[in-house]
């Protein structure tokens, strides 16, 4: 795949996929609608979703699930279908880059299958956790589920560059470490690519910015838990956009006071310093996601004929799914409107 994507793409190729994505983006729920959704009950939300892009999935899953579970699974299925659609409507470099980016979900699925198999959960239960939206399709993951042992599942990836990581699991490595290594592999395999063209540069920078966000979330999360700098560093993904490994090491070793001072100036901190000092970690994560999404929207409008509008859409779609899920689950568990609103990332 790496050899294929080091090539130039015609502007007309971008124009097609960007135009398609523009149409898809118009179907995203506008930010004003969230205020209405927040005031609806669960049935009204389901009815609202029946009038949107999610109708097909809700109708399809209604015989298996009900209530909030139905909404939840419909949202996941819609997400996986939307991403698959993006792969199908794109071609050439754009397709390669989209598949490369959506491989995130392959690792998500592999992790869930390994977890499920290791802890003796049924195939049905594991299947419910899968989002086939990357390089491997649903049938491939079903074939993995049919396998009896972890060894057999790991062997199915023989020849893949991440096979040695999976093999560690067979040799007794902790699952959590293997999961983190897979995530690191995913990001570094993209971020370490050489930017042969401007299109590639946009793509790699996008992923490297995501690495910054993920690393910052990890540092804040582990620092507030009092984890040692060495352990924090073992979870840091290299090739950050602005937050290099060396800087991450420095931040990890600082005490919280110094840390709050040192984070000023990073592109993702913006006006978040106060929130990072005072808010619970989950809210900080939300705020960082919001800053990232806003930055991507801005960047994608600056470079309209590039992969960036597609990547921004992928990001916004995920945020929309998360928001809808938060509203539905929040309503189902009788959380107050304000509490739910605080959890949303409205871009």
């Amino acid at each position: 795949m790496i050899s294929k994507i080091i090539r130039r793409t015609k502007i007309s190729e971008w124009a097609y996929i960007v135009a398609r994505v523009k149409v898809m983006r118009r179907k995203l729920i506008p930010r004003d609608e969230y205020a209405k959704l927040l005031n609806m009950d669960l049935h009204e939300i389901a009815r609202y979703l029946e009038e949107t892009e999610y109708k097909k999935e809700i109708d399809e899953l209604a015989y298996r699930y009900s209530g909030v579970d139905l909404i939840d699974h419909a949202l996941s299925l819609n997400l996986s279908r939307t991403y698959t659609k993006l792969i199908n409507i794109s071609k050439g470099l754009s397709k390669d880059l989209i598949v490369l980016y959506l491989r995130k979900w392959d690792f998500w699925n592999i992790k869930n299958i390994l977890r499920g198999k290791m802890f003796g959960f049924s195939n049905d239960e594991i299947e419910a956790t899968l989002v086939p939206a990357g390089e491997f399709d649903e049938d491939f993951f079903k074939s993995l589920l049919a396998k009896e042992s972890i060894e057999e599942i790991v062997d199915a990836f023989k020849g893949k560059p991440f096979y040695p990581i999976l093999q560690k699991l067979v040799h007794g490595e902790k699952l959590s470490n293997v999961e983190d290594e897979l995530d690191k592999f995913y990001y570094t395999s993209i971020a370490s690519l050489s930017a042969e063209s401007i299109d590639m540069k946009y793509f790699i920078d996008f992923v490297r910015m995501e690495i910054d966000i993920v690393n910052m979330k990890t540092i804040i999360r582990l620092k507030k838990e009092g984890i040692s700098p060495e352990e924090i560093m073992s979870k840091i993904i290299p090739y950050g956009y602005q937050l290099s490994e060396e800087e991450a090491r420095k931040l990890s070793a600082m005490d919280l006071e110094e840390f709050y001072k040192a984070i000023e100036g990073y592109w993702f901190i913006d006006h978040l310093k106060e929130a990072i000092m005072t808010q619970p970690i989950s809210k900080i994560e939300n705020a960082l996601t919001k800053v990232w999404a806003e930055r991507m929207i801005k960047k994608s409008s600056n470079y309209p004929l590039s992969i960036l509008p597609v990547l921004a859409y992928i990001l916004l779609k995920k945020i929309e799914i998360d928001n809808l899920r938060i509203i539905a689950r929040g309503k189902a568990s009788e959380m107050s409107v304000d509490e739910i609103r605080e959890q949303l990332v409205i871009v």
Partner: protein
Amino acid sequence: MEVQPTRMELIKLRRRIVMAKKGHALLKMKRDGLIMEFRTILEDAKRVIEEMVHRYREAQEKLALAMAADGVIAVKSIALSVEKEPSFTLKRKNIMGVVVPVIKREVVRKSVAERNYGIIGTTARIDEAVDAYEALIDAILEVAEIETTLKRLIEEIERTKRRVNALEFRVIPEMEDAARYIMFKLEEMDRENIIRLKKIKSKKEKAEA
């Protein structure tokens, strides 16, 4: 109560009455002590139960939030990584002769780094839900310990109460009745002897005259 109306029996009975009265007083003191202990623990129990209810609500909220923010799929997959059930060791403690359990919790709460799921691919909401549930398990074990202690204390208070009542209203009065009976009987026998002696004396005097 079947007793032999003898002086020896009376002495024995009096000793037993003294002993029973001492025992009664001691048991009464024990009962009162247990009740006081029960009341103190009851206050603790109320606090611990309230804490558990609060933690339960909090855990439910955090779980809902984790499910809402990360989706059932994510939460389920994290749940899949739960490796072992929380365990505890049971020790014993003595409160005024009542053996009550002391539940020693084995550390249920693990730090984020020790948990069996990757850090990079998960969010802090899941940590918060895991934390909240681990705190809930601690609270449940605390309630289990205090509830068992309360149950054992109630049983012991009941048992002591029955003993106090039995001594107060049955054993001691019966022994006192028996002692009184023996006394009457002995006095009766004394009087009979005096009369007998008087009669012998008057017969002797008549014969001499």
